[in-house]
């Protein structure tokens, strides 16, 4: 699975897979592959989410500087 997917792309693919799983549309012999793909997508999404959280935390620190004109 390509890890250069954006979070939204990865999650969108994951949502498709979940929908198929919920509806029972996946033949049993394809189930293992689909579940494997879903788990990979979950891993990508989790990594990206963690990175986004860290980036936002850093941005929050930067944004505490005062506006121009203030002592």
């Amino acid at each position: 699975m390509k890890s250069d997917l954006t979070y939204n792309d990865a999650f969108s693919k994951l949502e498709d897979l979940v929908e198929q799983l919920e509806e029972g549309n996946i033949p049993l012999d394809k189930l293992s592959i689909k579940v494997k793909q879903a788990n990979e997508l979950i891993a990508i999404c989790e990594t990206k989410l963690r990175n986004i959280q860290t980036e936002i935390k850093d941005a929050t620190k930067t944004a505490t500087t005062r506006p121009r004109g203030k002592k």
Partner: protein
Amino acid sequence: MLAKQKLTDHFLKDKMTEQIKLSELLEQIQDTIQTRFDGEAFWVEAQIMNVRKQAQSRRCYLTLEEYDNGNKTAEARGVFWANYYNQIENFEKVTKQIFKDGINIICKVRVRYHKVYGLNLDIMQIDLAHTLGTLELERQQTLERLVKENPKTIQLFDGVYKTFNNRLPIPLVIGKIALITAPNSDGQRDFQEETKQNKHQYTFSVSEFLTTIQGDNAHKLILDQLKLIEKSKDNFDVVAIVRGGGSQTDFKPFDDYELAKCVANFPIPIFTGIGHDRNQSIVDLMAREQKTPTKVASLFVERNFEFENKLIELKTNLFDLVKEQLENAKKELDNAKRIVKLSSPQAILDRGFAIITCNNKIVVDPKTITVNSQLQTLLKNETIHSTVTKKTKNEKRLDI
């Protein structure tokens, strides 16, 4: 003989001419004038010139003059004695202009003649309504001319003057100010004090453009300062023109056509605090008026405070929204994880189901199975190997 006779005639004639003293003659003039004008007062319209105010002795000497097409047609000396000196003070207070040469007034006078001091008109009252009317007329004419001659940059809507300058957006943050004011004036002090000691502790870079704010040439001097600022316009966020405290007179420079036109077309927002409460000057109307220097400075402080508040609000909203979005994403992901986990073949086996394989392929379609086929039944912990001996169709759907 003839020459001698002529000389005698001349002598006799001189002898017969009655001689009087100058003082006697002037007394007669004085008496005549007094008889004619005693107790009578007249309202006269004239231009005042050679005004000499003696504030200490509370007297003012001047000449009353009349012109016709630029030619002087009448002149008389006039004087405000101490008991009428308050008329001048009142004039300056009400009309907001200095009592000085060149002003046209209507005044109540008494005629007085003195054999030493000559003819004088004692001024007892000034018709303020006339002066105010004249000033207002001049003001209206200037305003009409501004609108007529600058249709693109000065317009009148519902009694409000919209100019290029007063429609310029005010910067969100004000830091660099060009200040036009009189040196060592109350206006300068008040403005600087407010910008330096504001409650929010904002710092401003104030560049002073000092000039005379009052007097005949003030409008030209202020105009020069504006031109100077315009040359380095990128260095300033706003311009403040302030004067204040003390004198409430001589707002005439701020009604000048050229100055008002320059203000209306100026590329940096101009704020005025020229310290008067009765009327707006024309410059006020062309710019943004704040009445006093302190109010102009306060506006700049409040503008920055407003911006900082907005920023804090946005920051808070942003962080809340981001937090919410991240939490939602996490919930959605957890939900997907749960569903995927439940759907995995291992989870199916864990729940007591079995998977049948034949030749290492999961059997989905029973048609692929025949009698004697070798099958593997995958359970949670064991695999059962078997050979098919019989195949039957289910008579009804299994209810499991």
